[in-house]
């Protein structure tokens, strides 16, 4: 992709185009802005007037945030929102580490270790990436509770992880691996053959090549895919509902927020700051690492 030498009069580069883009950018920002404003308004104001009127007689407050974070026995739960954020972290960090770590090694094995079924496994993984995770939810949940039985034979014994954080980050790792492996394979397979072969000639085996060459060279790809996974897992609802649905003790922010939105439907003085609180970490990750995130998207989509 070259950025040099662009023609000056591009299609649509006109005052009308600028206007259209400005209007869309504003339209895209207004809903989030409305949430931000609402979360700083007083309860009685939220219920009686629209948030866009708040600037006429400004009276903003931090009380809503204090209520959802530090008031026990409140509508948000005994311990406020922070424990749910910790659950989100305790689900996201292991899942990102394991899927990216194991995915990178698998990508290396498929790209640089010649063996018989290498190609079949690669296509198999690529095909599994298309399997909707809806197809796996219930059997996987049963598997965590009772082990795997296929045609009456026990293949894998029961794991005692139901209701723990592991029963949420393990499915995320499993579901993420096909895509992560595929994306990292694109990158690892494109490393220069001469470098890899020179190292092998010098007597380095696969473990050394991976650690000394592949790992350092893959840092940008790892960063972008890890961010991608982070946002994906942090923002998930379905896996959380199925695997952490039973207990608040391991529920991530999204799950708690979805429950709040349902049960407190019109209590915007709680729901708005809670929603804002839940999107703050992904927004920080996104804005500080946007460049890597975009690169990760492109690795997956532009051939």
């Amino acid at each position, binding site marked *: 992709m070259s950025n040099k030498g662009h023609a000056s009069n591009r299609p649509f580069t006109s005052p009308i185009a600028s206007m259209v883009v400005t209007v869309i950018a504003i339209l*895209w920002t207004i809903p989030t802005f409305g949430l931000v404003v609402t979360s700083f308004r007083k309860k009685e104001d939220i219920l009686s007037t*629209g948030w866009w009127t708040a600037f006429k007689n400004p009276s903003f407050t931090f009380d809503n945030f204090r209520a959802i974070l530090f008031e026990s026995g409140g509508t948000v739960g005994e311990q406020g929102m922070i424990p749910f954020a910790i659950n989100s*972290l305790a689900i996201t960090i292991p899942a990102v580490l394991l899927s990216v770590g194991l995915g990178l090694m698998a990508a290396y094995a498929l790209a640089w*270790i010649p063996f018989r079924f290498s190609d079949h496994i690669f296509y198999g993984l690529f095909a599994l990436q298309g399997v909707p995770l809806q*197809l796996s939810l219930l*059997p996987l949940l049963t598997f965590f509770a009772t082990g795997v039985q296929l045609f009456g034979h026990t293949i894998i014994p029961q794991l005692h992880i139901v209701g723990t954080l592991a029963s949420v980050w393990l499915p995320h790792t499993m579901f993420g691996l096909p895509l992560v492996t595929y994306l990292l394979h694109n990158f690892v397979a494109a490393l220069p053959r001469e470098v890899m072969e020179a190292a092998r000639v010098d007597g380095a085996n696969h473990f050394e090549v*991976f650690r000394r060459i592949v790992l350092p060279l893959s840092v940008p790809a790892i960063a972008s895919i890890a961010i991608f996974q982070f946002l994906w897992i942090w923002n998930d609802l379905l896996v959380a509902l*199925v695997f952490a649905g039973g207990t608040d003790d391991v529920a991530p922010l999204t799950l708690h927020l979805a429950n709040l939105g349902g049960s407190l439907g019109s209590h915007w003085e709680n729901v708005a700051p809670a929603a804002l609180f839940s999107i703050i970490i992904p927004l920080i990750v996104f804005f500080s690492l946007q460049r890597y995130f*975009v690169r990760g998207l492109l690795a997956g989509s532009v*051939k």
Partner: protein
Amino acid sequence: MITFGSILSSSWPKIFQIISVIVLFFGFYGIAFAAGARIKGKKQNSLAIALFLVPALILVMTGLGIPAIQTFIESFKNADSSKWVGLANYTNAVKDPDIRLAFINTISWVVISPVIVTALGITLATMLNKMKREAFAKSLIFMPMAISFVGGSLIWNLMYAYQEPNRPQTGLVGQIMVWLGFELKHLLLWSPWNNLFLMVVYIWGFTGFGMVILSAAIKGIPTEIEEAAQLDGATGFRLFRTITVPMVRTTIIVVLTTAMVGTLKLFDVIHTMTGGNFKTDVLSNRMFDENFVYLNYGRGSALAVLIFLGVIPITYYNIRSLRQERKH
């Protein structure tokens, strides 16, 4: 009053768990790599495959491969999977008016929203190209990508909030309807248009993706081709139609198919905003309800298989183009 101290003491086991996973992972592979580096000759290939590839394969097979087969088998059994019922789950699903509606809604989601996402994406990408403050505008439109669909749904619930006509409106969309002199409606209850209002949330969340991907593709168009077309007198919309669109055709298909798969599986928006009520149900929400609310595993599995059948043509197409690409 909750203090940081009390939160920390109750969260400590979880933090400890995060740390243990990290330590165990790096510890295990640290030792494995140290040991593996000493091994020479033929053995190291098998050892490397065992340590690099097998863990990932086991996880993928237990998490996706085997469960998918089980769901397929379950879909031919009754509600508590005690009896074989043949195709009954599928035929009943087609007969059930609620599920039929979920079908129709899913199809309209899959047809309408990807087209809008892609059309908006390419328009924005083309207009933004070389524009002043391109990066800033892109960030704003792209930002919803970082927000969960649960968060997005609540953000839009606020936009669609409804109050009785004699009271001041608290939802901006309702207020705009009042200002423009339309009849005030409770938007999320207004069938069948409420489906469109739900799609808006998805389009809002996903257009940034289309824009960023297409924008990269447009920047990749060789300048000479564009200049040649301009010398031939092509400008504005003609240049867009005859050069830009054909040159990024593959990327358009990528955005379109990604959005299609996304909408086919979409669950969060429906679950959070309407719970599938008010005639807005879709297959993937219905599948969740069958499995986890009505506890009809047979039918839930059948719906999951149907979602899978919808994805197959797209996966098949992707594998085909991947094989062609790898041959070159």
